[in-house]
C-alpha cells in the first residue's frame, strides 16, 4: 500500500484503539486532507473526532494543547511544512514546555503531523524541511518514516507515546508503495535502521532522502564501492549506537538531508559521531544537504536537493580523502 494509505490505516487503528484520539487540521474532513491521509476518517469517526479547523495554525496547536490537558490525544495536521511557523510559539513555548512547567502533571502526548520536504514540483512554502528547528527544541521529539510500513507503525507508536512528537512525513514518498505488516511493529519508534550493508562508507539519512541514498548506494556499488545506508528514523533523539558501529567498520561518514546544513540535524550527527568515533574516522564527515538559500523555485529543485550525483560526489570525497 502507499505511504499515504498506510498513514491513513495507522490513524484509523489508533482512533479505534483509543476514543481520546482525535484529529485536527485544515481540510482533513470531507476532503480527507490535501494528501488524502485522513480520507474517510471523518465519515467514520464523526466531526467531533476529525475536526476541520479554521485557517489558523497557532490555534490548531494551541487548542490541541488544551485538549491534551483535558485528557485527549490530539493528532494535528499542518497542511504543508511552510505553514508550521505561525504555530511556532505554541510548539516551543507550550507543547515543548508544559510537561516540565507543570512539574510533570500535564501529559503532553500529542502528535504534530507535517508533510515535509521537496521534490514534488510545488510552488513556494510547500517544500520546506523544518525538522531542525524542532530537533533543537528541548521537550520535543522528531521522527520521520521512510516506508509505508514504518509510516503505519510509527504513527501509531507516536500517538501512544507520552511526549509530544513532531511527525515529519516525506511528502514526495506519499504515493510510493510498499509492504505493510499489520501484525508486528518493525522496531521501536526511536531506533535507527540499517537498510543496506556496506563496508566503505556509512551514509546516514532519513525521510525523503532515504530512497535517494539507496539509489546512490546502488550506483556506487556499480563503481565497486560498498555503501552502508542507515535510516535514522528518529531525528531527535538520534539512535547513535548503530551509526557508531557502522563507522567502526567503514571509517567514512556522509550525512544527507534536504534542510540547509547550518546548525542542523546533520551538523549534530557529524559533531557527535566525530566525537564518538574520533579514532575510527578516516576522513571528515561530509554533509549533503539543501544549500543555504531559501528553497528555490521547483524547476531547479533537483539541483538544490541532495540528489544521487551529489551523494556520489560526497562518497568520492570521503573515499578520496586519505589519498
Amino acid at each position, binding site marked *: 500500500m502507499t505511504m499515504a494509505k498506510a498513514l491513513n490505516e495507522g490513524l484509523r487503528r489508533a482512533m479505534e484503539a483509543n476514543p481520546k484520539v482525535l484529529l485536527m487540521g485544515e481540510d482533513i474532513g470531507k476532503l480527507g486532507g490535501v494528501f488524502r491521509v485522513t480520507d474517510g476518517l471523518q465519515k467514520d469517526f464523526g466531526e467531533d473526532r476529525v475536526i476541520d479547523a479554521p485557517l489558523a495554525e497557532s490555534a490548531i496547536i494551541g487548542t490541541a494543547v488544551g485538549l491534551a490537558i483535558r485528557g485527549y490525544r490530539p493528532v494535528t495536521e499542518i497542511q504543508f511544512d511552510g505553514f508550521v511557523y505561525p504555530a511556532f510559539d505554541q510548539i516551543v513555548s507550550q507543547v515543548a514546555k508544559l510537561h516540565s512547567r507543570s512539574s510533570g502533571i500535564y501529559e503532553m502526548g500529542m502528535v504534530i503531523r507535517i508533510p515535509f520536504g521537496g521534490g514534488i514540483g510545488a510552488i513556494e512554502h510547500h517544500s520546506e524541511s523544518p525538522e531542525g528547528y524542532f530537533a533543537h527544541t528541548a521537550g520535543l521529539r522528531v521522527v520521520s518514516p521512510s516506508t509505508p510500513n514504518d509510516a503505519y507503525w510509527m504513527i501509531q507508536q507516536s500517538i501512544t507515546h507520552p511526549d509530544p512528537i513532531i511527525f515529519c512525513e516525506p511528502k514526495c514518498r506519499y504515493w510510493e508503495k510498499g509492504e505493510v505488516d499489520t501484525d508486528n511493529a518493525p522496531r521501536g519508534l526511536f531506533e535507527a535502521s540499517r537498510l543496506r550493508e556496506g563496508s566503505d562508507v556509512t551514509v546516514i539519512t532519513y525521510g525523503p532522502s532515504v530512497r535517494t541514498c539507496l539509489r546512490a548506494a546502488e550506483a556506487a556499488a556499480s563503481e565497486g564501492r560498498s555503501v552502508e545506508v542507515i535510516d535514522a528514523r528518529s531525528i531527535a533523539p538520534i539512535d547513535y549506537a548503530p551509526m557508531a558501529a557502522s563507522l567502526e567498520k567503514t571509517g567514512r561518514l556522509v550525512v544527507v538531508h534536504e534542510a540547509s546544513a547550518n546548525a542542523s540535524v546533520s551538523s549534530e550527527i557529524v559533531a557527535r559521531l566525530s566525537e564518538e568515533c574520533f579514532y575510527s574516522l578516516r576522513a571528515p564527515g561530509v554533509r549533503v544537504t539543501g544549500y543555504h538559500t*531559501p528553497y528555490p523555485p521547483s524547476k531547479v529543485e533537483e539541483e538544490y536537493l541532495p540528489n544521487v550525483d551529489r551523494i556520489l560526489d560526497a562518497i568520492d570525497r570521503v573515499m578520496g580523502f586519505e589519498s
Partner: protein
Amino acid sequence: MIEPQLVQLLTPEGERVYDDVYETSLTAEQIFAMYRDMVIIRRLCNEATSLQRQGQLALWAPLQGQEAAQIGAGRALEPSDFSFPSYREHGIAWCRGIPPELSLRLFRAVDHGGWDPQKYRHSVPTIVIGNQALNAVGYAMGVQRDGASEAVITFFGDGATSQGDVNEAFVWASSFDAPVVFFVQNNQWAISEPTIRQTKIPLYKRAQGFGFPGIRVDGNDVLAVYEVTRKALAHAREGGGPTLIEAFTYRMGAHTTSDDPTRYRVDAEVEAWKHRDPIERVKAYLVRAHKVSAKKFAAVNDEADEMALKLRVDVLAMGKPDPLSIFDHAYASEHPLISEGRRDMEELGVGGAS
C-alpha cells in the same frame, strides 16, 4: 444568501439599482473598459488552467467568479497606491500593468515572484495565508511617515481572516490610523471549508470590533466594487484610517488545479452562483443601458484570444532557470555559505539555463 447590507449598483440581471451612499460617475466607456478587463482575465485564467492540464504549469489558482471583485478593486487604485496580494490576484496584477506572463512565472515554478514589485507597486505573491496583511500595514505606516497621499490595499480570502496576523493587522491599522484597505474576497470557501467555519457572522462586521468601518459589497458587481473601493482608498489617503471591504463573491472553480471540489460541495450551489456571473451582469447592463454593440463585445473576445495565444507562447518560452541562480539573491551581500554553495555546484558541473 446575499444580505440586505450588501452594496449593489447592478443586479444580477444587469439592472442599475441605487444605493443611499454610493453613486457612480463612471462613463459607459469606462464600464466597458472594465468589462474588457474581466473578459481578458477570465481568458487568462482559462488559458493558465489548460496550460497546467498540459503539464506546462506546476499549479494554477483560478479566479473565475471573482473577476468583478478584482477588476473593481484593481481599477479603483491610483498608480501611486501600493498593493499586497495573496496568490489569486491575477486580476489585480493585470490592473497594475503587469504583463500576464509574469503572473504565471510563480506557477511555472521558475520564480517565486515574477514581476518587479516596486515598479508595478504590486508586491510579490504571498502564499502563507494572511501574513502579507501586516506587511501592508507597515508599508502604510511608511506612507504616513512620508506624508504621502497614497493608499495601500491588501487582498486576502475569507479563510485568512482566522489567522492571527490578519487580526493583528487590524489592531495595528486602527492604532496607527494607517492608510490601508483590507480587501477580503469572501469566495465562500477556504479550500474545502465554508466561510461559516471561520465566522458565524458576516465577515465585514469583524472590523467593528477593531474600531474601523467594515462594508460588504456585492463582489460580482464591478460597479459597486469599484465605487466602494475607491471611496475606502480616498478615505485612507485623506487620513481617515483603515477600512475592511468584504467582497461577497464565489469561487466558481476549484481551489487550485490540485483540488477536487466535488468532494465537499454540491453542484446546486455552483449553479446558483452561475446566475450571478460578474461578466454577464455588466454585459447585460452595457447592452441594455448603453446599447453597446455585439461587434464591440466580439472585438474584446478577439483581443482576449490574442492575449491568450501570446501568453501561451510566452509561457512555453520560459526555460528552466540556471540552477546557479538560486545563489543570486539569498543575501544582498557576500556570504561565505553562498560562495561555497556556488562553488560546490559549479564543481559538480551543474549550471546553465535550459
